[in-house]
């Protein structure tokens, strides 16, 4: 056999073997590790993935508690003329060690408070100020009609505004890997004319665990 034919045959055999090797794993049955089926959870109850930080059940619990407390406070919910309040995450800060979307707390509080108050408070959407101004301008320029509720001199101002803070205190045992965290969420309604605090609420809890849960 000439040397060139021998080399050609060897290359061909090599390719066949190589391709065969490549094809092998793809044609064999896939060995999947058993996964977990999707489950629907009650947002008011701790789920299977839980750590030491603020979780869904804490948010539902704290906003429900604050809402009910606000509605039982005469300075806010017992006035002859319903106060105009601003409840958003603008002045809700997060100084804790946990990454968290502050709006998830402020939005739930505002929506549930608005639904439950039934006119005992009037909610000013300061987040929508730009959108509202755009429409007001169009109405006054005559590009759109005045709608059905009439024109006002200005947008609504706030009597009270929510401010709050999320803070935490962490401690860790390097021997066991155990982590303990004290979480504190404070809520205050501030009089926007005088600067006084007319209502305060606090939600706090401490948890300890050695699990490697990541909040993100």
């Amino acid at each position: 056999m000439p040397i060139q034919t021998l080399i050609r045959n060897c290359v061909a055999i090599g390719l066949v073997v190589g391709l065969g090797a490549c094809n092998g794993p793809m044609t064999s049955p896939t060995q999947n590790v058993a996964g977990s089926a999707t489950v629907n959870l009650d947002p008011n109850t701790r789920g299977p993935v839980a750590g030491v930080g603020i979780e869904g059940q804490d948010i539902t619990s704290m906003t429900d508690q604050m809402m009910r407390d606000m509605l039982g406070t005469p300075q806010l919910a017992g006035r002859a003329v319903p106060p105009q309040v601003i409840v958003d995450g603008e002045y809700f800060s997060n100084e804790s060690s946990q990454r968290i979307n502050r709006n998830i707390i402020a939005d739930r509080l505002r929506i549930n408070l608005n639904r439950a108050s039934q006119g005992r408070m009037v909610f000013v959407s300061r987040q929508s100020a730009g959108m509202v101004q755009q429409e007001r301008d169009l109405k006054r320029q005559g590009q759109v009609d005045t709608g059905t509720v009439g024109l006002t001199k200005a947008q609504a101002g706030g009597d009270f505004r929510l401010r709050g803070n999320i803070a935490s205190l962490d401690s860790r045992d390097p021997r066991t890997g155990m982590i303990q965290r004290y979480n504190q969420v404070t809520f205050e309604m501030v009089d926007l004319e005088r600067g006084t605090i007319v209502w305060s609420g606090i939600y706090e809890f401490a948890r300890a665990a050695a699990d490697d849960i990541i909040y993100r």
Partner: protein
Amino acid sequence: MTDKSRSMNRKVSKTTALGALMGAAVLAGCVPTQVTRPPDVACDFTPYLTAVQAGQVIMGPLPGTMTAVPLNSVRVIDPRIANKVLVQSVAARRTETGTVEVQSRLINCTDFPLQVQGRTMFLDTANFNVEPPSAWQRVFLPPRSFGQYQEKSTDIRRVANFTVELREGD
């Protein structure tokens, strides 16, 4: 025995007596016969199955399928704490804004700390829910001691009854 030690002994015996009295009071609260506990919800499917076999497809509540749940009371719905926690009192009143405030005193009858969670359903005169049930709220109960569960309604006009549920804290 000096005057000082006599005085000390008197103080100790007074403290012991007071402690014994308090302990007796707590234990007295733990005797099930002294606290009326509402019956647990019991479901009997027999009338339902009989009706299904008779050919009924759509039906309303059938008499005898459920025991009546008393209103304005606290129900321990979790068997894990059924023989650990007792309800000493439950009361309700109007707040200054007209909402209804419910308060219940709970006793931890065990020698170790317990956590319970409570929620309240506020009902109108026709037993309709006037608002969604409150979120579960945690109460810490030290060993052989009292804790307080408290909740407020959001409605000011329609609340006529309430029912409180207790489960073990997770």
